């Protein structure tokens, strides 16, 4: 059994919170530049140019890309042959507290959904844990903004709806979201599993890098088709009209119950924040 110090986890999570908020992914920068070349709307070009300039300023000055520094969503893959001295969940929360405080990140979490006040340190984190073979700990911090999260949805469809039903639901969700999630967006889609698991799948889909297709050619084709259809909606950058509405669409699937066909759409903004470390 490998032993890992509490402080190692705290420091790693703090650093990931800051890096995810300061540094726009190279994959996103690349696709934004391509979109700027192709964009037909003058307003759209203006917006895409601003997003690229913004990323440059954030990176150089180490300040957040967006004032909404997100809910700290953490994906934890815990090697079964590893032990963290002290509780790993509290280490993650201490890391979030440190990262958001020392990194000058906005604290956006309210302690109780109805009666609460701002917790002041952006805790608690949302932690999704998987136990995996080996003695490594893989931690991904994916800060999630509220504006795009609000444009997400789970639908319990009928098995008869099939893949066409899924496509219609995704297109309809993006159409209704319109300008609200700060397009160009990244769209995570979950298909299968149960009511709660399908939402997790859609969230997990957002951890992929732009252009990384589902390994199953069937779903890879659906991803390409949905991206084209979404970009033909005309919503455009910031919803002010244009060709660039989404930067990518990612589908994750899971076995389902014979009676159920859950589908989830998790919308992300262009920032598509996620940073990973393996300890």
């Amino acid at each position, binding site marked *: 059994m490998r032993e890992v110090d509490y402080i190692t986890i705290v420091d790693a999570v703090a650093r990931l919170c800051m890096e995810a908020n300061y540094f726009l992914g190279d994959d996103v920068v690349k696709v934004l530049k391509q979109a700027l070349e192709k964009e037909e*709307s003058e307003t759209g070009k203006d917006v895409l140019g601003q997003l690229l300039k913004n990323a440059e300023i954030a990176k150089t000055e180490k300040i*957040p890309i967006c004032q909404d520094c997100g809910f700290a969503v953490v994906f934890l893959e815990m090697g079964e042959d590893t032990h963290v001295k002290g509780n790993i969940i509290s280490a993650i929360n201490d890391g979030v507290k440190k990262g958001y405080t020392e990194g000058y990140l906005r604290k956006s979490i309210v302690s109780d959904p109805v009666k609460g006040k701002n917790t002041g340190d952006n805790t608690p984190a949302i932690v999704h844990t998987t136990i995996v073979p080996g003695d490594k700990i893989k931690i991904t911090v994916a800060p999630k903004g509220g*504006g795009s999260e609000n444009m997400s949805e789970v639908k319990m469809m009928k098995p008869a709806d099939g893949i066409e039903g899924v496509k219609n639901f995704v297109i309809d969700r993006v159409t209704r979201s319109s300008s609200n999630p700060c397009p160009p967006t990244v769209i995570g889609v979950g298909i299968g599993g149960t009511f709660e698991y399908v939402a997790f799948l859609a969230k997990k889909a957002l951890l992929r890098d732009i252009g990384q297709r589902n390994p199953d050619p069937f779903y890879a084709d659906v991803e390409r088709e949905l991206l084209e259809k979404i970009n*033909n*909606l*005309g919503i455009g950058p910031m919803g002010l009209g244009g060709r660039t509405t989404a930067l990518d669409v990612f589908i994750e699937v899971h076995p389902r119950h014979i009676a159920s066909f859950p589908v989830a759409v998790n919308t992300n903004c262009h920032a598509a924040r996620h940073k990973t470390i393996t300890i």
Partner: protein
Amino acid sequence: MAEPIKIKTPLSDEDVQNLKIGDSILITGKIYTARDAAHKRLIELIEKGESLPLDLKGQIMYYVGPAPAKPGYVIGPAGPTTSGRCDPYTPALLALGLKGMIGKGVRSKEVREAMEKHKAVYFAATGGAAALISKNIKAVKIIAYEDLGPEAIRELEVENFPVIVANDAHGGDLYEEGIKKYRK
């Protein structure tokens, strides 16, 4: 893209009526931040017949909850938040003379109608361009509801703050027009 139009706050009815959807605008002067939590408190004061912590006449309200300022900075990144959350409260503020709003995303029918009635304009700023936008903010002062943290009402001194007219005082809606134009 056409040369941006420069405007100064506070805005007159004439200033507002000259603006058309799609116009690229640079704002200079004082603007006021408020998100839905601060709006709720303002509406409670109006309902009780009490005076507001700021005079809204001719002013622009910016829907934003900035990130904290690093040492040496006047403000942290400060891009627009979703305007729709302020919609239920907006018509009452327009009736008190609010002339402009800066945010992101579509407005409700009620807000658009109130904008035509009271002659007001809605500007879209680029969501997610918060670091860039913060460079146009030169001074910051909290004027009410400090307990709301990032959601407090702040007076911002801005210089050439870049926005686009999304809804004008004549019923124009760039969200509707723009999407129609590029839909395939």
